[in-house]
């Protein structure tokens, strides 16, 4: 799929963001003319139904029917982050309808309409959703409101300026009133507005106030349907066993008769690197897979193990790689420094392991491939599926679904392609469900990284500058098929090349080192999470090296970052940072400016015994600009913080004989309620443009934890997870 990507995809999200409002307006106008200028109105008028041949460029976001019911087409998939409610709120705010009148429909793959200009393709990820939709979706609602008012004004023969919209109706100057449903036909004849002013923030009725999410009522009574819950006529369940070594193939298959003799089993399907069984139920699929005698050709990577991979990455990390950033002269600075400080940090391979395993419903017919699947990148899924089944892209129909946990995993479409590969050999639709074991051992993993930092310190032991070497597999290259001409994985070096600390000399080197056997991909927090761990541990080490308070030391280096300073001060204030703790207890802090937001997290923990850690308090302060739906922001910060801690405490994917050793949650343990206290979130009041929150909470968690461990024990751990060094929660 990567070869379908053109060069615009290689733009950095952060690079785009840094330009601020002026630049982002430019981008939207460059990328989204159809959405901004005409999208909503045509649909208001025609009631067009996307996916049924409506004109391209029309009806991208809003539909209103004759009863006045509003449907918002969401270009972003719901995977728990609350984004669809946020998008509905944006439209409802400007359209002047109560949120209860709005329902959400999933956008089909359509690059012209739904490309995310920050990601440069149609996808949900990178904490871009609210940032990108903030302007166009409000404009979609406002534009629709304008033509509805105009239609009413014509009907009543009054000036539009004398009419106003309220609560799903247009009200006239002489107590006239018309519901939106009555007006949609009349609005059809009207030209689309070109200049769409937006409501000032201080007049918002919905935005900025916590709203009940639209998707949750169905999720508390079992009626919400995830992909794994779908049923289409004639469908059978399918499950696979894929070669345990990536790159291996199916050599031989015996005992098919025994597998087929199991009640409910229909077919055994051979794939290049896997065997699939279809049956009336998942249990029969598993029994049949167990009954098969499968012989693999493990391929060229069967000899690989974690020790070898670790060593080769560690050795590579000492190399020079390519320059990702160069300011000042770090070589001279290091040479002339009154002292230097060096540290190496390591972060492991990680699995996503969402609780809904990889699942896809697929029906391949002679002339069409129909897919029902929760996916974060429907456009890429569509293109790849077309290749697998040999149909034109437009003959692949994707019905996007609720996602039972994404965390980046469903930006990948490997399981969708496998489902298509099975379904194209069968005459009936299948629902492919991976067992947890298949899911965990055939993930696309967050890469293992080594970060080396070397700081030049002045006589006060403050950094004049530092060199930061980042070594690991390139996710960007894996996902897009290559790197830009400079050879830098722009995601991996985010934060590192633009730290919140003022440094005269800063040099960032990127050393690409792809593991031979392990496929890699995006994992919640992506490059900024990795860089933040290294930088925030390092600055903490520098503070302790200078015998300085870690908060004050940071503040002294953050003069150019008022918003970052403010969240740090607030977090320190909430936790009573200055109040000493008893021996064996400590607080650790980490700060970050990521995804357009600013965040400071403080972990307070107490050591129990040699390696027991009792996390006593978790505080996180976020400035995400204007908080659309404050409850969703708080939820994302609470969950993100614990998500980050979970991996930092427990998680590491290990390889033996080329095979992933962690197969299920007993070996890849997750944080439980007993492991950590509630997370206290403070949201800074702000009217700045919204920043991202989906990944922001996860980003500083690990560094805050490790820094707290140091504060409590005087032991500096640099390699994650902490369980690797014997630590556990009590």
């Amino acid at each position, binding site marked *: 799929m990567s070869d379908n990507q053109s060069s615009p995809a290689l733009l950095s999200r952060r690079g785009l963001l840094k330009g601020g409002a002026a630049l982002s307006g430019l981008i939207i106008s460059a990328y989204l003319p159809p959405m901004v200028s005409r999208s909503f109105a045509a649909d208001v008028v025609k009631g067009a139904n996307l996916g049924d041949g409506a004109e391209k460029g029309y009806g991208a976001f809003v539909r209103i029917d004759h009863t006045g019911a509003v449907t918002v087409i969401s270009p972003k998939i719901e995977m728990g982050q609350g984004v669809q409610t946020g998008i509905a709120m944006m439209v409802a705010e400007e359209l002047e309808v109560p949120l209860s009148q709005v329902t959400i429909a999933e956008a089909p793959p359509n690059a012209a309409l739904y490309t995310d200009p920050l990601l440069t393709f149609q996808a949900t990820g990178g904490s871009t959703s609210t940032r990108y939709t903030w302007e166009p979706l409000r404009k979609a609602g406002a534009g629709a409101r304008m033509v509805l008012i105009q239609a009413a004004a014509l009907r009543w023969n009054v000036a539009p300026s004398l009419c106003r919209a309220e609560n799903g109706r247009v009200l006239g100057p002489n107590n006239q009133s018309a519901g939106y449903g009555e007006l949609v036909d009349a609005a059809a004849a009207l030209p689309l507005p070109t200049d769409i002013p937006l409501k000032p923030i201080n007049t918002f009725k919905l935005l900025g106030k916590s709203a009940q999410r639209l*998707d949750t009522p169905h999720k*508390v009574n*079992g009626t919400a349907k995830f992909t794994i819950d779908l049923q289409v006529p004639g469908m059978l369940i399918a499950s696979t066993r894929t070669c345990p070594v990536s790159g291996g193939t199916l050599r031989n298959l015996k005992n098919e008769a025994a597998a087929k003799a199991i009640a409910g089993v229909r077919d055994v399907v051979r794939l290049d690197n896997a065997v699939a069984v279809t049956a009336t139920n998942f249990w029969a699929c598993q029994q049949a897979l167990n009954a098969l005698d499968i012989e693999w050709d493990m391929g060229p990577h069967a000899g690989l193990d974690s020790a070898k991979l670790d060593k080769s990455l560690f050795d590579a990390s000492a190399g020079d790689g390519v320059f990702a950033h160069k300011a000042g002269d770090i070589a001279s600075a290091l040479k002339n420094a009154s002292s230097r400080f060096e540290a190496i940090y390591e972060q492991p391979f990680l699995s996503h392991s969402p609780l809904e395993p990889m699942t896809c419903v697929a029906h391949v017919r002679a002339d069409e491939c129909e897919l029902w699947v929760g996916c974060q990148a429907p456009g890429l899924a569509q293109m790849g599926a077309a290749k697998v089944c040999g149909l034109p892209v437009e003959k692949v129909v994707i019905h996007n679904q609720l996602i039972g946990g994404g965390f980046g995993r469903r930006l990948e479409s490997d399981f969708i392609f496998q489902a298509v590969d099975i379904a194209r050999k069968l005459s009936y639709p299948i629902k492919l469900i991976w067992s947890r074991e298949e899911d965990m051992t055939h993930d696309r993993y967050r890469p293992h990284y080594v970060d080396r930092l070397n700081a030049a310190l002045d006589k006060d032991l403050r950094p004049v500058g530092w060199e930061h070497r980042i070594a690991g597999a390139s996710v960007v290259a894996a996902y897009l098929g290559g790197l830009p001409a400079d050879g830098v994985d722009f995601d991996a070096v985010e934060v590192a090349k633009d730290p919140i600390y003022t440094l005269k000399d800063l040099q960032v080197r990127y050393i690409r080192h792809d593991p031979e056997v392990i496929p890699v991909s995006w994992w919640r927090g992506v490059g900024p999470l990795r860089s933040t761990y290294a930088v925030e541990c390092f600055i903490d080490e520098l503070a302790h090296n200078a015998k300085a308070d870690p908060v004050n030391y940071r503040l002294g280096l953050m003069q150019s970052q008022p918003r970052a300073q403010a969240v740090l001060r607030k977090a320190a204030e909430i936790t009573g940072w200055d109040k000493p703790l008893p021996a064996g207890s400590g607080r650790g802090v980490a700060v970050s400016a990521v995804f357009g937001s600013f965040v400071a997290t403080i972990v307070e923990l107490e050591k129990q015994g040699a390696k027991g850690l009792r996390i006593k308090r978790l505080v996180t302060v976020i400035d995400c600009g204007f908080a659309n739906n404050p409850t969703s922001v708080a*939820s994302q910060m609470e*969950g993100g913080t614990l998500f980050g801690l979970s991996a930092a405490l427990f998680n590491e994917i290990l390889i033996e004989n080329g095979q992933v050793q962690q197969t299920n949650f007993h070996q890849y343990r997750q944080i439980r309620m007993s492991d950590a206290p509630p997370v206290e979130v403070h949201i800074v009041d702000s009217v700045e443009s919204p920043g991202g929150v989906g990944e922001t909470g996860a980003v500083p968690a690990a560094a805050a934890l490790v820094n707290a461990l140091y504060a409590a024990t005087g032991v500096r751990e640099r390699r994650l997870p902490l369980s690797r060094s014997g630590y556990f929660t009590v």
Partner: protein
Amino acid sequence: MQKLMVNGVEHQLDVPDDMPLLWVLRDVMGLTGTKYGCGIAQCGVCTVHLDGHATRSCVLPVSAVAGRQVTTIESVGEQPVGQAVQKAWLEHEVVQCGYCQSGQIMSAVALLTEHPKASDEQIVDAMSGNLCRCATYTRIRAAIKSVSQA
């Protein structure tokens, strides 16, 4: 033939006796509110009530259910405690992706039925077998507490 009492209704089903209840519910009866997560009783998303007790249906052979009452998320709202818990879940906006929440709610209802005034400690003890990858634990605690203190 297995005779089953699910959500107050008796069913006669032609399924093997070692088939886990989870798959009988989901793939045979179409009750998909109960989810699959691990298959080894480590995540709790498959939790149902067996005679009122929270039970992992992924490791429960259907034959072991004979003569016992199975309650799933689809009907737990018919009980006063179930209703109160579902309401609290919405009021506290517990849910993120929602995949684990059927199991969380079933565990919470079992806890609050047995201990209507569940303490903080009892909440943690009873809920720590249920994983949430979105890590909604902060709000799960708060929602349960609001019911136990009501």
